[in-house]
């Protein structure tokens, strides 16, 4: 238990100090279950600083990423209200930030298990996620990245739309007006809705209830790109409008 506490403290302080650290598995034994315990502890430290739970983010939702990491299932990270980006990200407060285009779901009713999902979706939106691994060179093993809250750093969402089929909507990410990534929401497990069901499964396993008003970031439609200082980023999804952020 003290191990979990110490590892969580290391990660939390790395984020607060804006300082990359060697990955935990360089020096510690870490399995997936323990890694999730570290993740929970990192978030509890943030909640103790008066942040509030805001939802979850799903990771490794693309086939390419699963192959790259040698895994067969998704992972998740926990979001807090302090991670919500309105229109500006202070990249100086991040180690080596990246940004990726996302599909986001708004939870309208409590989700305790996958059976709750279909009736629970209150809205869908285009979004973005700002990633920032606390590890040197963005390099990690599966337990490392789980412990590090799936590299979560920030997120933003566009206007909420009525729930609809978003299994194959085109997505563009532009930086300063230039298209840097193109893709389809189909890259998210074939349909972002599958990712939402996986989130419900993980929440059941973790005993975490997804509450009304919380957000599920279903996953990225393309690979992430570095997020430099002084730029304007816009993510657009067919039929869902766009969401913008400056740095």
């Amino acid at each position: 238990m003290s191990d979990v506490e110490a590892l969580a403290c290391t990660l939390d302080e790395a984020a607060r100090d804006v300082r990359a650290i060697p990955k935990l598995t360089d020096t510690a034994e870490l399995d997936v279950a323990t890694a999730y315990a570290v993740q929970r502890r990192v978030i509890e430290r943030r909640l103790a600083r008066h942040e509030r739970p805001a939802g979850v983010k799903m990771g490794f939702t693309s086939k390419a990423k699963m192959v790259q990491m040698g895994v067969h299932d998704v992972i998740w990270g926990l979001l807090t209200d302090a991670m919500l980006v309105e229109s500006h990200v202070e990249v100086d407060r991040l180690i080596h930030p990246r940004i990726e285009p996302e599909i986001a779901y708004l939870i309208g009713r409590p989700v305790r298990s996958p059976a709750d999902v279909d009736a629970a979706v209150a809205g869908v939106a285009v979004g973005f996620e700002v990633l920032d691994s606390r590890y040197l060179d963005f390099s990690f093993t599966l337990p490392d990245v789980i412990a590090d809250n799936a590299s979560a750093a920030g997120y933003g969402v566009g206007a909420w739309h009525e729930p609809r089929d978003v299994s194959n909507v085109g997505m563009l990410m532009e930086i300063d007006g230039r298209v840097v990534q193109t893709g389809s929401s189909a890259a998210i497990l074939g349909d972002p809705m599958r990712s939402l069901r996986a989130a419900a499964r993980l929440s059941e396993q973790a005993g975490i209830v997804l509450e009304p008003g919380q957000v599920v970031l279903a996953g990225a439609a393309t690979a992430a790109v570095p997020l430099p200082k002084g730029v304007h980023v816009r993510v657009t999804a067919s039929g869902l409008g766009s969401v913008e952020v400056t740095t």
Partner: protein
Amino acid sequence: MRDTSIADAADRLLEAYATGVPCAPVRDLIGTDDAYRVQRRLTDHWLAEGRRPVGRKIGLTSAAVQRQLGVDSPDFGTLWADMAVPDGAEIPAGAVLQGRAEAEVALVLERDLPHERNTAADLLRATAFALPAIEVAGSRIRDWDITLADTVADNASAGMYVLGNRPVPLSQVDLRLCGMVLERRGEQLSTGAGAACLGHPLNAALWLADTLAQAGDPLRAGDTVLTGALGPMVPILPGDVLEARVEGLGDVRVAFAKEDS
């Protein structure tokens, strides 16, 4: 000397077509500037055989492929009526050498585009409708070991193609934002969006219209234009059944025979 080289390059490619055995690259015989003259020789050969030209394909439309080949422009090849198979039909084994599949937007024209410099308005007025398409590209060059000269000479690596059956007017679809997914038995092979094709599939078609008119062989009413890949190409295997879905255009599929008959 130069004409001989062009004839030699064309003969090498025709030999690969005839034997079904991929050949060495032709870049040792020709410069990049001569590549369309080689392609023209192939075209003349096929016209003499009685094949019916039905349009053009545009290649090298993605930023990634252009970087890979070190070029900053697309290329084009000729589509022939016998390259097209109906939606869901099977392509015989060996019909396309070293086949690779990609999902595209196809345009079908209802007016000629004779001007050397076309505007979006010209193209929109000339286009009857769009269709989803799968292009099964092929290369007569061994192991796809191609430079720009090789692929241009080789009819822009054209193979066969399949068009969807539900025409969609351009007013009904956002070709920049449309999502694309290409699957094999439900397994995702490739995803993308319209903007992956030169920023917009119509940008690619405009380049083609201008380029062909400047070469004195403009796009004509009735032509089909395969505008270019919306996502990465994927290798195909015997027995595959591939399905592409393009948001707003619908779906289209193609099968590949199991083995040589």
